């Protein structure tokens, strides 16, 4: 691992704290939106090497097949551009449960299933990212969500894509909505350049402390 990408203890603690608070807010807004209690796990943060991504994913997501929605996010005017990608990962998805969550009452078709995946991902992402952005005093902009795979083996997730970074910061959060027994994972991935920028923001915030 490149030396400069190591987080010192202060940075790590502060980032964890920011994520925890952000997730608390996200949980609140999701509970309000879905009108039921949403539980979020404590975010698990780690730096992963691009080359080890698949084995890390297998460890983080112990499921045979998954469906994945990707959504890019970036800040407005920073140099270098702060950007990242969030992956919402659904394993053993019950679409009927998800449909209830979104108040869909149309008949289920493959297109609806896709729309549900996109919609849930976008909502979860929005809640999560705005929670974190607020803590970082930033505002994130998003690209529309897109499905990068449906019911595919975990190994296939990134094999087709050319990976253009060496390391990524991964923040893994688990969501649970008990009443509709729905569960998914959110992986926020930041490439090298954005990790450095994040560290500089953390340092700035730590100084103000």
């Amino acid at each position, binding site marked *: 691992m490149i030396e400069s990408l190591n987080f010192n203890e202060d940075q790590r603690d502060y980032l964890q704290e920011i994520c925890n608070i952000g997730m608390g807010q996200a949980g609140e807004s999701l509970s309000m*939106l879905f009108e039921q209690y949403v539980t979020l796990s404590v975010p698990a943060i780690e730096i992963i090497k691009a080359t080890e991504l698949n084995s890390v994913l297998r460890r983080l997501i112990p499921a045979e097949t998954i469906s994945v929605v990707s959504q890019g996010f970036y800040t407005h005017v920073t140099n270098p551009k702060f950007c990242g990608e969030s992956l919402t990962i659904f394993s053993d998805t019950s679409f009927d449960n998800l449909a209830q969550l979104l*108040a*869909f009452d149309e008949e289920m078709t493959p297109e609806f299933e*896709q*729309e549900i995946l996109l919609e849930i991902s*976008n909502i979860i992402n*929005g809640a999560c990212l705005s929670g974190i952005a607020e803590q970082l005093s930033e505002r994130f902009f998003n690209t529309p969500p897109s499905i990068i795979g449906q019911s595919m083996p975990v190994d296939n997730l990134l094999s087709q894509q050319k990976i253009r970074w060496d390391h990524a910061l991964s923040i893994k959060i688990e969501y649970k909505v008990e009443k509709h027994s729905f569960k998914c994972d959110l992986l926020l991935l930041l490439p090298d350049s954005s990790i450095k920028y994040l560290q500089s923001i953390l340092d700035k915030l730590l100084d103000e402390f």
Partner: protein
Amino acid sequence: MTNKFAYTHNIIDCLDNGIFVVDKNFTIQLWNKFMEVHSDFTESEIIGRNFFECFQNLPQKWLERKINSVFLLNHESYTSWEQRPYLLQFSHGRSVTGHLGFMYQNCNFAPICNQDDEVEYVCISIKDMTDIAISTMQLKEACAELERISSIDGLTQLFNRAHWERAFANEVERIDRYGGKVSLIIFDMDNFKSINDRNGHLFGDQVLKEVAKRCKSVLRSVDVIGRYGGEEFVVFLPETNIQETALVAEKLRKNICDTPVRYEGVALSISISAGFTTSGSEYNDFEKLLHQADIALYQAKAKGRNQCVNYLNLPAEAFEK
């Protein structure tokens, strides 16, 4: 700066996108020219009215929740034509050449915040995606057709060798991983060369087509048949034991040789020789199974043709071949 501001409304009207704004009660606050042109409402008619009262055929519950999520999360929301063709049913510019009854739309729901950074309005923009939708759908159709063509043998309309082998290899891999059984039949037309020589290649082609048709009438929908080479055919039968496979092979043979093939006034009796085998309890390999069935087929030919041979019943010396 003030100048620019004064023209904002004109600019919004110039956009080739539908733009409208609703507040928390879904009361319409803004309605641009694009929306006027495509809906039945002018700006002055619709401003101040409830969106759902104006458009009653919308999936209201879903849309309310979607717009509410933007108010609540201060985060954009989207719909895409690929999943939901349109939000509002508008007609589109290619009414003559487009073959489509309506405008495909991508929509974006964006939060509009007040000075305190609270979401006060949601701005909905509608983008006409009809042209892209038409070409994407044509592309998809073309790809599906290409995929079909690349897996089919043109003459017999059975799977071609490459496709059949892939399917068979997958099946063998599946049973090796998850357990189960698969059986295999290989058969070959008897004396096909002399049919071609005596009756011509067109007659030979007719024979192959007829054989494919007769096989399909015997096989179950789960059995997968392919044309393996010139006059050689292969069938794999998922979850079928050797006794059942023997019955199927015999039925195929009988069905093919019972009725002569007729073409341009000539009727010709035909027959096949077949070899068959089945997967073992472990270490299966599709090439090994093909090899076994091939040995059995060879024996069927050697014993005088027009018969089926079970690889498992062969004496040990036959394996030397």
